[in-house]
């Protein structure tokens, strides 16, 4: 195991970063989030076709790259740095992981190719550690009815994966009503997904805790990317911006805050890398709710630690970034607001920091008062 990046990972990072620099600059992203097609599906197809990111987690025999959580984490760092509006987390991580757990073989090949996009129909704010609210039911004729709010990536999905009870259903997106709602996070808006008698096919057992904790552990890397962008951008700004005939970055009140932010980000990187590394273990990486092997529990603890730390750090750095930019940080024209919105929304996503800490209480044997 290593907490550093391998050469292959650095190459992957470089190609994603190059493509994003070309296609996903701030002006382009801002224009897009103001339009009614906030996701950039052209960019998503290119990422899939040229770099193969859609099938990173899919084994080679199903047409994927046969890579692991470590590589997916590197892609997420880059997507976070660019607040790129593409459904990588929702399709290539969450939906793909759910299918891998089920042992599905056909759809997974389509996802790996990048031609088909899927979404897991759970609220983005769903916690890995609590049962989902049962808002969708199966009728006597086997069709699905009900609605799920706050779902990310559903509006650009071709296929929906819908947990009902402990089962995972496949529903074609055209059989659902998907309504994007005005969302706090402009670059990852959420939608209400409604079914009324939609035809669904049971794929197998939905491993909620495993899938969502895997997602939370990897989301930490996206949050790291957000935090890094905010730190670097702020650092560059306070070196340039002069007040009182000095760069504002020469005032100790600001320097000390920057030192603390840097230290938070250094530790976020270690936490995110550790989670990615332990989640990359070949099989059974997460304990099926409750008991399992030591390796599974280690990975789950690492995901909970990264989930709580990186959520708070990304948000804190984004908030400080706004403050240290002064008036310009409060504007629509400056990119930092997109990062703040992403950071605040992803703080809640896949378990709020406190939910992850409750999991730590269980996994690290620090029981709550009776």
């Amino acid at each position: 195991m290593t907490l550093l990046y391998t050469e292959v990972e650095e190459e992957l990072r470089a190609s994603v970063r190059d493509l994003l620099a070309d296609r996903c600059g701030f002006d382009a992203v801002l224009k897009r989030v103001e339009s009614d097609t906030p996701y950039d599906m052209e960019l998503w197809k290119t990422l899939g076709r040229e770099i193969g990111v859609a099938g990173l987690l899919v084994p080679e025999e199903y047409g994927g790259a046969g890579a692991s959580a470590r590589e997916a984490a590197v892609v997420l760092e880059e997507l976070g740095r660019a607040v790129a509006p593409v459904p990588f987390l929702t399709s290539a991580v969450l939906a793909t992981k759910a299918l891998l757990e089920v042992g599905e073989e056909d759809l997974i090949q389509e996802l790996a190719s990048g031609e088909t996009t899927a979404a897991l129909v759970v609220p983005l704010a769903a916690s890995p550690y609590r049962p989902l609210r049962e808002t969708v039911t199966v009728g006597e004729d086997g069709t699905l009815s009900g609605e799920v709010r706050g779902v990310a990536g559903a509006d650009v999905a071709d296929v929906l994966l819908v947990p009902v009870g402990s089962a995972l259903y496949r529903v074609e997106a055209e059989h659902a009503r998907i309504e994007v709602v005005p969302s706090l996070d402009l670059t990852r808006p959420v939608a209400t997904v409604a079914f009324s008698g939609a035809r669904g096919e049971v794929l197998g057992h939905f491993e909620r805790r495993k899938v969502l904790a895997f997602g939370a552990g990897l989301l930490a890397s996206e949050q790291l990317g957000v935090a890094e962008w905010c730190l670097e951008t702020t650092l560059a700004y306070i070196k340039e911006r002069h007040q009182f005939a000095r760069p504002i970055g020469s005032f100790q009140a600001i320097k000390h805050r920057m030192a603390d932010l840097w230290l938070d980000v250094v530790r976020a990187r270690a936490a995110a890398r550790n989670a990615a590394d332990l989640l990359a273990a070949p099989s059974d990486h997460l304990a099926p709710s409750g008991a399992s092997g030591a390796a599974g529990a280690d990975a789950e603890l690492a995901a909970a630690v990264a989930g709580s730390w990186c959520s708070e750090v990304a948000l804190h750095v984004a908030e400080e970034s706004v403050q240290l930019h002064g008036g310009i940080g409060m504007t629509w024209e400056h990119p930092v607001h997109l990062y703040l919105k992403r950071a605040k929304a992803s703080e809640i996503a896949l378990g709020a920091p406190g939910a992850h800490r409750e999991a730590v209480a269980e996994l690290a044997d620090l029981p709550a008062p009776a």
Partner: protein
Amino acid sequence: MTGEDVASLAREFLAAHDPGDRLEFLRARFDAGLAWVHFPKGLGGLGAPRELQQVVERELAGTPQLDTGVQGIGLGMAAPTILAFGTEEQKKRFLRPLWTGEEIWCQLFSEPGAGSDLATLGTRAVRDGDEWVVDGQKVWTSGAHHARWAILVARTDPDVPKHRGMTYFVCDMHAPGVEVRPLRQITGEAEFNEVFLTGVRLGDDLRLGEIGDGWRVAQMTLMNERVAIGGAPVRRGGGMVGVVAETWRSRPELRTHDLHQRLLRLWVESEVTRLAGARLREQLSVGQPGPEGSGMKLSFASLNQALSGLDVELRGEEGLEYDDWSFRRSDSVDFFGRGAGYRYLRAKGNSIEGGTSEILRNIVAERVLGLPSEPRVDKDVPWKDLPR
């Protein structure tokens, strides 16, 4: 050299030496190059990558170990400095007994008028033939009462700006004119001392590095100090958080919801700090610690303080008691030992010793992040003309 090579060397060594005789065993371990594998051959090492040390430690677990509580300054600060700046004779003379613990070291840096601003120090060393005559006062000198040798920075040229006029020495703590007086600490005991240096004569062969180059040599010591304090590998859930978690687990009647929330936050922070330390060590496995090490020391200090404070609070009534206020000289430095009250008070020093947390933030901001320094009034002024 691979981990396997080092492991088999360690196993052969263990087969050939009796761990029953502690000192002989440690001496032989040094001579076998298994003291610090990244040091050169002949000086306790194998010229191997630093991270292979853990292989040795694994193989030799259960054999006599060093007393890091008293040897900390020697191992963590003096040794890397001697290795980097010492002559061949100095390395041969000092490193072996330093490592085995036959000779204890202390650090004569801080003075009453020079703490954070170490470069203002005024202890004078004046050349007299082959010798230097040292006069001045040092303070907060941990473990001076155990020490055979000290690392010492003194002013050799008062006429140039402060950073340029210093020279680094090894000070003989048994030399005439060295007087060590205990200073009682907030914990009750005296771990540190004042050290008065009056006409102390040191041979020129005790000088470390060039005349006037003392600041550069001292930087090497300070960088290593920040890694030495708080940079040591810990296991998950170990260190101060382990001490508190132990109380938490064994005393369910003390638990409250508020304490639980705070403990969980600190547990997570301890864990990410531990991981960052491990990651830093991976990066450093070759090469010297850089200013990034300052970050680890900062976190170590704030975590120790928060956790030890939580421990006292958690214990409630029992937290009102204290194990022992008697004024005595400490045997060793131990952040995690004794009672909760002692640990709480001792941890207050963690954000002062080895560079205060404010100074470490300056270092991170300037040397890691490249932020400009505050305007300075002391840079180009000869030391003797500085206001004090």
